[in-house]
């Protein structure tokens, strides 16, 4: 197994996914590292490596005590928690972006783990089969699962969709 190649290809997308999932930059970064440590230790034999990485990473961020309540508290107390980097060039723009991010994080935190997983894995481009495996459901059920998850997130974000008659 080419660990180097896998790392280069998947570390950043995995980090983004786990950051979205947990709302916590530190937790996401920690989980990425430990996921790759485990990859070296236990090469997955069943299914694709990509799905394995995301499953393990997701489990790690959850195992690390990022419970629903703690996530909410974290997001409320530190909505601007972001990865380390340079200060923003435009503070006003950055503030607006943080507010919007905070709104989505709050909405996601209201969803169940399953709903969050299906939405975020789909956004990462996972296939129906891969998401179904992660959720341990029949792939044919993915339509209704996705529909419910989207409906809940849209409601939480108070999204109103209009279509011309």
């Amino acid at each position: 197994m080419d660990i180097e190649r896998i790392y280069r290809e998947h570390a950043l997308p995995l980090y983004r996914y786990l950051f979205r999932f947990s709302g916590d930059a530190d937790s996401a970064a920690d989980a990425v590292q430990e996921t790759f440590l485990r990859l070296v230790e236990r090469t997955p034999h069943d299914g694709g490596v990509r799905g394995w990485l995301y499953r393990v990473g997701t489990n790690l961020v959850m195992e690390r005590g990022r419970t629903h309540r703690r996530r909410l508290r974290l997001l409320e107390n530190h909505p601007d928690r972001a990865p380390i980097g340079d200060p923003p060039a435009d503070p006003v723009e950055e503030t607006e972006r943080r507010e919007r991010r905070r709104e989505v994080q709050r909405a996601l935190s209201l969803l169940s783990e399953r709903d969050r997983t299906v939405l975020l894995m789909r956004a990462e481009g996972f296939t129906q089969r891969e998401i179904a495996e992660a959720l341990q459901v029949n792939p044919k059920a993915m339509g209704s699962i996705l529909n419910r998850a989207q409906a809940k997130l849209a409601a939480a974000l108070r999204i109103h969709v209009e279509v011309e008659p």
Partner: protein
Amino acid sequence: MNPLPETRHVPDEDLLLFQEGWADPDLTTTVREHLRGCDECARRAEWLRRRTSILDSRLAELDPPEERLPSSFREAAQQAAPRRSAGWRRFAPRATAAAVAALVAATVLVGPLRALALGWAAARWNEAVGLFDRSPRATHELTLRKPTQVSGPTEYRFIPEGTVLRLELASTQPRGTVTVTTVQDVAAVLEVDDGAEGESHASVLVMPDRVRIGNSVESTASYSLAVPSQLQAVRVRVGDGPWSTLRPGEFWPGEQRVLPLGASE
């Protein structure tokens, strides 16, 4: 193909399966044919499509701005881009160093607790080294330099095991740094802090930018540095003293070697 009865519309879940490309061939054909003749379902499909699009754009807002992503992950992703080019293997060592450094740099900057929490991984690394590529193309070389701030350590215990290098620094100073540099110019600073009692451990993949290690007076700090390629040689330098070079054939793997500071190999 099983056409829908004229009085039945396509349920949302099937429309979503169709739009996502998740429907099987039969359902795909059925939905496509139905949408051609059913304005109500066509409008519903458009409504679902717009909802999906709006949610996608909102989820994308969760991502931090590109410039605020951990530089390590960005660098790793950049390394991935040309991976299929003809001469990509030539750059593999540098890519490895940068990528793994990136991994750690972003994850171990949170203080001594983080470093301590990673201690458990050291033993597993030692068990996992057999998975690494041991082909001779790997050219990692490490140089270890004693920090000028620390005067207390009397020796390094230098324990290469496969691709894991464990460095034990006996310290009589509560503070200081150990700088580790590879020939690929990937540098790490292991910063000893006076935050913990007794022995301190850190396990990192290769080289973080800066790892803080809790390290009380007269404790021993232990760092496990895992490199996903075989080390060809390791050079140790203390302060301005002579280089000590260790080569895998001389002690590889798992053999311990204690280098008095400044000793020449």
